[in-house]
């Protein structure tokens, strides 16, 4: 199902090597967050790209193409995670527990209330940050600083948009651990973003 090429339409994603390389890098990064085995992570990206390129003619915009290619990647990753469920299970909650106790002690006092300097502030127009390349660099760094299992679960939930049942089924994490991991990831991410972006007043570009 290809459609006629419009003269003022940008070139197909396919024709632009730089675009494809950048896209592949992003997919790899994402895939690596989900799958600890980098060879498998790369296989998933390769397969998703091949599948997507077969249908490239039905997409005139890069955004549409990218959404679609990530949808394929997400399914490849889910398949791999299902097969490797036991492997993921070995990555226990306990490993990062001590580290997170530290973070929580940093932001909450003994009574469980925010330390004065850590109390969340009002983020002015967070959607404006989305248009800022610098913001996304900060976002990525904050994501990279999450403990691996938190990053994996958080991305499955918020980036891929899986529901909790699917995440528990494909990772073997219990529902209560899932709640804990998501809470910790959100607490970390918001702390990182506030400290490194929203309190710096750079979001108005």
């Amino acid at each position, binding site marked *: 199902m290809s*459609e006629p090429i419009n003269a003022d*339409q*940008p070139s197909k994603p396919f024709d*632009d090597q*730089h*675009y494809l*390389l*950048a*896209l592949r*890098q*992003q997919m790899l990064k994402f895939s690596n967050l989900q799958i600890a085995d980098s060879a498998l992570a790369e296989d998933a990206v390769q397969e998703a790209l091949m599948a997507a390129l077969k249908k490239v003619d*039905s*997409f*005139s*915009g*890069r*955004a*549409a193409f*990218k*959404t679609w290619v*990530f949808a394929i990647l997400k399914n490849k990753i889910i398949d791999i995670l299902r097969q490797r469920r036991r492997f993921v299970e070995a990555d226990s909650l306990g490993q990062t527990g001590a580290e997170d106790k530290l973070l*929580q002690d940093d932001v*909450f006092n003994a*009574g*469980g*209330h*925010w330390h004065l300097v850590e*109390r*969340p*502030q*009002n*983020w002015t127009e*967070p*959607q404006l*940050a*989305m248009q800022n390349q610098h913001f*996304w660099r900060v*976002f990525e760094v904050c994501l990279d600083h999450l403990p691996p299992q938190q990053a994996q679960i*958080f*991305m499955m*939930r*918020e*980036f891929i*948009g899986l529901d*909790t049942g699917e995440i528990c089924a494909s990772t073997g994490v219990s529902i209560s651990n*899932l*709640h804990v991991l*998501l*809470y910790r990831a*959100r*607490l970390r*991410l*918001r702390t990182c*973003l*506030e400290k490194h972006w929203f309190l710096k007043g750079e979001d108005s570009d």
Partner: protein
Amino acid sequence: MKIVINCRKATQLMSESRERTLSRRERWALALHKAMCSGCRNFDRQIEALSDLTEGFKYVSHGADEKSNGNREG
């Protein structure tokens, strides 16, 4: 569960409410806490924003600038 909760518990419930329906008692405790605590009200808005931002992260390109054609859906 107690009706008066601290910020740690309140933020846990806020996070969990994005994945499950809170019990009536949890909702009361949370509403009461939020009425008194601006930090936790901000936290609630922030994790909502975090969700939108992460969704938006899908469309970020680190290479070519796609702002000019980013909204074309074909």
